[in-house]
């Protein structure tokens, strides 16, 4: 990964140089470092690269407007190789050598959980952009106090989408989930929501992070006679599962949780036939800016993503990196100085609109986002339902 990092840094510094011409007051000041840990190699590297690109777009946008506190932001990007142990190493390097005052990361729940105790030990705040295991914002988890999470928990997804279950006619469910903290957390959260809404879970099958063949699990579900399959996994594996369902002659309803897979990515990866009818829990819709918490930012983000010629299927994940950098920039601005304790305190008070929706953090460091249920209709993107983040905030306040 050295080569990758060197080239990334070279590209970034070249870009910062170009920007500096446009923003003279930011030019002379030393940049404020922001750590970003993502899987840039290994089985989930595609997702990590999308989020890194989203973060770059936000950083360049902040710097083009003159930076934060008159200084430019500088992303220090580390690769966690899709691995929890490597995530901890990356966090240690960012904290000890680069001395970053804040870290964004680290995609997978197991990866994020691995670095939390270390960040807490050094008092470095973490902005979590993707991970959705409930453990991360559970006060019993070591390191939870430094976490501010903009991505939803699986429980929140289940609340946002749970009301739909009887309407969708899902009765006998087979659950396919990736064998990580994310997958296991989602199975627990959705299992409860399904039971509450009158559906039964016939079986749960866990799959490895790098698996490509799901015939065994799907054959089992077919024999059990399920009418729906729920999937918690990334886009490429979800696409393969849908394809292999068709190959085995398994024609059932499909709901995909987690927000990594969305209609366009599955249409491209699995083909429109295998993707048809599948439903997805998403947090952002790049076709309808009015759905985002900040429509202007959404417009600018989509425009820039296209301008940079980035893969369209990654735009829904890239949004997480974009929002995370904007949250960090806003917190540093409010903190008045870029030090870890000040940023941590500022994050607790923050309230802003992002692509995720209304972003602010509850006492456990959790924000609530828009929950959109999207569907492949006639080979194209369609929306089934949406629960705005403001409604989830109202529901939680009423509780």
């Amino acid at each position, binding site marked *: *990964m050295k*080569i*990758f990092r060197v*080239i990334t840094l070279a590209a970034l510094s070249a870009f910062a140089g170009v920007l500096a011409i446009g923003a003279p007051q930011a030019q002379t000041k030393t940049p404020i470092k922001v750590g970003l840990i993502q899987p*840039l*190699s*290994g*089985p989930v*590297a*595609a997702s*990590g*690269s*999308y989020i890194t690109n989203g973060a770059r777009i936000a950083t360049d946008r902040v710097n083009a407007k003159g930076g934060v506190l008159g200084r430019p932001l500088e992303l220090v990007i580390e690769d966690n190789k*899709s691995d929890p142990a490597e995530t901890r190493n990356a966090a240690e390097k960012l904290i000890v050598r680069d001395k970053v005052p804040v870290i964004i990361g680290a995609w997978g729940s197991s990866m994020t959980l691995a670095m939390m105790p270390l960040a807490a030990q050094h008092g470095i705040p973490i902005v979590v952009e993707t991970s959705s295991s409930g453990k991360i914002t559970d006060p019993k988890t070591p390191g939870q106090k430094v976490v501010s999470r903009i991505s939803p928990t699986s429980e929140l997804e289940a609340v946002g989408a749970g009301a739909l279950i009887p309407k969708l006619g899902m009765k006998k469910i087979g659950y396919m989930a990736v*064998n990580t903290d994310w997958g296991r957390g989602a199975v627990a959260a959705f299992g409860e929501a399904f039971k509450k809404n009158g559906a039964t879970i016939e079986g749960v*099958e*866990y*799959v*490895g992070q*790098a*698996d*490509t*063949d799901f*015939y*065994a*699990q799907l*054959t*089992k579900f*077919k*024999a059990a006679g399920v009418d729906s399959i729920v999937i918690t996994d990334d886009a*490429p594996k979800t*696409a*393969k599962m849908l*394809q292999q369902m*068709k*190959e*085995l*002659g398994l024609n059932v309803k499909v709901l995909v949780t987690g927000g990594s897979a969305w209609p366009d990515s599955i249409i*491209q*990866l*699995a*083909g429109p*036939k*295998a993707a048809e009818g599948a439903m997805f829990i998403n947090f952002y819709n790049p076709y309808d800016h009015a759905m985002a918490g900040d429509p202007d930012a959404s417009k600018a983000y989509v425009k820039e993503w296209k301008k940079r010629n980035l*893969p369209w*299927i*990654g735009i829904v994940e890239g949004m997480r990196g974009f929002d995370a950098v904007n949250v960090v920039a806003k917190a540093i601005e409010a903190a008045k100085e870029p030090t870890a304790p000040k940023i941590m305190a500022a994050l607790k008070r923050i309230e802003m609109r992002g692509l995720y929706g209304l972003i602010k953090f509850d006492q456990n460091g959790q924000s609530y986002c828009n929950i959109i249920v999207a569907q492949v209709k006639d080979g194209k993107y369609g929306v089934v339902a949406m629960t705005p983040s403001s409604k989830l905030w109202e529901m939680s306040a009423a509780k």
Partner: protein
Amino acid sequence: MLAELVQHVVNGLILGGGYALMGMGLTLIFGIMRVVNFAHGELFMLGAFFLYTLFSLGGVNFFAACLLAVAGVALVGAIVERLILRRLRDQPIEIPMLAMVALSVIFQNAAILLWDPSPKTVRHPFSPVPLTFGPIHVVAIRVFAGAVAVALIVGAHLFIQRTRLGRAMRATFQDTDMARLTGVDVDRIYMFTFGFGAALAGASGALLGAVFWVYPAMGDLAALKSFAVVIMGGLGNFPGAIVGGLLLGVAESLGAGYISSGYKDAIGFVLIILLLVWRPQGLFGKKGLSR
């Protein structure tokens, strides 16, 4: 009940055909040349990316693109042998092993830079509609991949056992000095064998890349399964690679189907441990074969 069992066994055979395919390049390089090739997965990955580039981006005919991709990986293999392994041939085994670890990291990151990490789908010319036999379903591309796997493995086996060049290869790796004395061009044999093994890895990558999808880290799983298949079948034994692959596939499929899919990989490896306790030389390996 019976239909489910038959489908599980069919799934396992299809999966196992893929594993045998992954393992065959390694059985030559690791089994016969005794190079612990940690870059095997990356040669596999290059085969898939060459196919993707030629067929999906370049518009070359699918079967021609497969052949060209295999030739490309053979060339990469020959270059690796000439530039790296030849200089390390007389070093202890861990030196070329470390070189191959480095190479695997370099290849994987080069692929990320060249093709970006998002997974690519190869829209192969086979119909996605499954062939149906009563309650049993199979898709054509997987049958094709399985058939090519068996043909390649049998072909490679006959080539090594029956041809003059094959005999020169076996002689070289049994006793390099003696082979050199009898007039074998040992350097060329080394380069050819590594290139041949790389070509087999590339062929499996191209075929399985078309069945599943193409991405830079795809070699990780392939390398793991390949070592399992090769060790299970017996080092350097081609029929062993077929049986080892099929056995692993069926064990994983039945294990996932009737025990738990969360332990799918564990079931395969428990099987390997049991097998090695019973037969340390592998299923088809000869006792005391070492160098």
